[in-house]
């Protein structure tokens, strides 16, 4: 079984964790944008969530049509236990991988920043 989550998938699962019961596309998209400054599209959010649903990490249901959405239905998502485990695993891996490497990364970044500065 694929134990790995993509970077965007991890980001989404965190957003889902934050949003709690009111998780739907708009909320998740805004959460990602506010926290990371990354502009993602509603379509990208949808596709990734479908993929996670398919893997059993997330469950979803459709609400009644809403007037503020032009009479369209809204899709709600909830983080499933499998998803929480997977996210935890991913985070744990990242922690273990990065352990003791903060200093080096900082140096490498400084170097990259310095090069960029000379341009």
């Amino acid at each position, binding site marked *: 079984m694929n134990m790995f989550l993509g970077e965007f998938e991890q980001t989404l699962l965190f957003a889902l964790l934050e949003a709690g019961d009111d998780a739907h596309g*708009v909320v998740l998209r805004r959460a990602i944008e506010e926290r990371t400054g990354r502009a993602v599209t509603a*379509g990208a959010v*949808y596709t990734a969530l479908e993929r996670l649903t398919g893997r059993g990490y997330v469950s979803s249901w459709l609400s009644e049509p*809403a007037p503020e959405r032009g009479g369209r239905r809204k899709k709600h998502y909830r983080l499933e236990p499998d998803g929480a485990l997977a996210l935890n695993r991913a985070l744990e891996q990242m922690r273990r991988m990065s352990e003791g490497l903060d200093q080096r990364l900082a140096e490498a970044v400084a170097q990259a920043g310095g090069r960029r500065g000379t341009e």
Partner: protein
Amino acid sequence: MTGHLSTPRLPRMLLSLLLRGEVLEVVLGDIEEEFAAHVLPLRGARFARGWFWRQALGSARSVLFARRRGRPLPPGRPERRASKRSRGRNVVAGLHHDLRYAYRSLVKHPGVSSLAVVTLALGIGATTSIFSLANTLVFSPIPGVRDMERQAEIVVAEWNENGYRPRWVMPDNYREIMEGLPAWDGIAGYSRPSVHVAGGGATPQRLGAESVMASYFDVLGVVPRAGRLFQGSDDVPGAPPVAVISDRLWTRLFHRTEDLVGITVKLNGVQHAVIGVVPPGFHGTERFGNTDVWFPGSMNAHIHHFPGLTASQSRARYLTEGETDAAERFREADARVFPGLGINDYARERLSQTLRMLMGVVVLVLLIACANVTNLLVFQGIRRQGERAVRRALGASDARVLREQLTESVVLALMGGAVGVLFALGLAKIFEGTAFGGMRAVEHVQLDLRVLAFTVGVSVLVGIVFGTVPALMGIRRGFAAAFKDFSITEARRRPFVRAGFAVLQLAASVTLLVGALLFLGTLRNLNRVDLGFDPDGVTAFYVSPGDQGYSLDQMMAYHTSLLDRVRSLPGVQSASLSEYAPFAYYMVDNVYPAGEPEEAMVEVHKNGVTPGYFRTLGIQLLGGRVFTEGEAFTTGGDYPVVLSEALAARLFGQASALGGELRTRRRYDGSVDSFRVVGVVRNTTLNSLREDDRMMLYWPLSGVRSSLGRAALLVKSQQAPAAVTASVTDVAEALDSSLPLYGVAGLQERVEATLSEEWLFARTLALLAAVAVVLASVGLYGLVAFGVAERTREFGIRVALGADQQRILKLVMRQAGLLALLGVGVGLAGAVGLGRIVEGRLFGVEPVNVIVYVTAALALALVALMASYRPARAATQVDPVAALRYD
């Protein structure tokens, strides 16, 4: 909450076009909600619009290009189930993916792909061109007519198995016949004379006209382009003469003047007020009609209109609900209903036969093309086995691979279809100028939406067929599995499958070749038919002084001076007048020798001629004499007649016909006319090269008074046809400028025009046979080359063990020869079938024809030999050492 500023429409529509179902609903809902609740209030309208655009386009891209990774999951895992569950949602995305995959793999093998596209283009193009011909002839609408399929033509006639002879029926008779019948809401009779038309200062011309009931345009639903069309009062006796003209005549004579007040045309010398113009393209109820003028009058055929009924229902209604008095009356009047307009029923019968034959032939070519492409793809598939293995290992499902294959072959076929349309445009040109089944010659074969839809349909079908066939061959091992593995093992395990394709191709080539040869033989035989006259340098004109109101004396005077003046033209060797020019449908009469009972009568074709007729056409006099100039224009008494050889023998046997007396009973009053035979001439063909009925009776032109009203002028000249036409036309204009010559044609052209369908078949079959032979030889070459390449190791071993080159050459050639033999055998069997279908169109050629069969078989055998020789030579050049290392 309702946004006071609505979301931008264009990106919304775009998104709705690109996405479907739930994806669209949820994604667009999210974007709209956020737009109204957050973006617009916080960032202002300008930014919000840009944001909306970015979201819409970005979302579409994200969804459509959603990357599905190759996930090495065993089946049955949650992921697989999930992908099945979301299949419907991902169809669009999946299609897009398949298309990209197809594009990539087609581009990766440009050689194979372009060869496949060209091959398919030939097959699809040929099919499309035949369909566009059928479309033009049978389906194309008549411009200006409303609800064509609800119209029906009613013919009152004498019927027999060969056709019918329409009866003259007046409008009141029609009303009687139709009375009490259900479901018609208008009748509109017409008859189709041709008339002299003069107006707008142009030279008078003879044009097609329709004499119609006033309801004609109403029933057909034609609306005027200018002015008005006929009204109820226009066909009442004593009404002022009015006429409606065609758009092209309006242009030619009146330069499209919108104001028709005071505009007139002279029809046969009588002034008619032009009251209206019909829409462009409307030329009567025939699809390739040539009517330019309509005037109210009597009629002998008519149309009516069934609201709410399809044509076939209307026919059924008449024929099956036959118990009412009205239906009884209808039948007793010898009336019949022909549903639909645009093509005469008898022409339709012959035409559909022609089209079926052509369609059958092109379907053969299409089959060959498909077989070739299938082979190509299989061959290519073998080269791609590595790629597929990798895809399998990465977890691509069976269905996935099958879908990709199908998408690829359909894309290939569509590309072939696109190129094929260009090819069809060129091919359709060969149909132009052909007169089908006695119809007017097709001027322009059109490619319209229906044709394009047909091409797309055929392409998709073809793509599915040649994409699926390999899979079907392995059906025992499961459809998808067989497909997936076919390229790897199937082709090797079952070489006979590919050999089967090669045999099929060779067979179709043989069949087409036989067909082409049969028609070439037919043409040769028809061209060899002894006409009995010499058409060379003879031009025919028609002139109808009767229509301009000439009296009998005036007509004789006119004809005499016309002949005198034409004969004195430079280069003119001789000239004559006759009732008919050769290759006409002559009047038929019955004659019997005097002194014998009337039952001994013989059916003869009659032509009234002046003495110069025989000289002009070079018809040889066998005995006696032809008419004198004096006899030509005398009337009454014992008519001197000249008989054709065949007729003389039939009537008088061995005895000399000269001086014999013939009798005929006049149909209309029962009185008996008698003729004296003064001469016998050689047989001539009558109206078809195929018929050998040559019972011809010539009598003086004046013997038939009506023939003076309309006569054919034949001019034999040393000058070029154009010069003859110009000088003769000048002479006629000087005699009476209101009397145009018409129906001008060289006699040679008239003869050749009767062969236009045979030429078409010969040309089409020869062209397609050539295409088929090329395709088949490429196919065979590929097959043999592949077989040799596959057996490289075997050949290496054989050479190492001491086999000489001759042996190996023989080994390979024997197999190719076996295929060719099989192909020829199957092809000849097909040719027997083809022969049975085209039998009626052949002349002097047996459909099952040993010489033709042997020629075709030998030609194909030669081609097969050439196609397989090169790869077979390659087999003899195998280096044993290299071959043993080869894998």
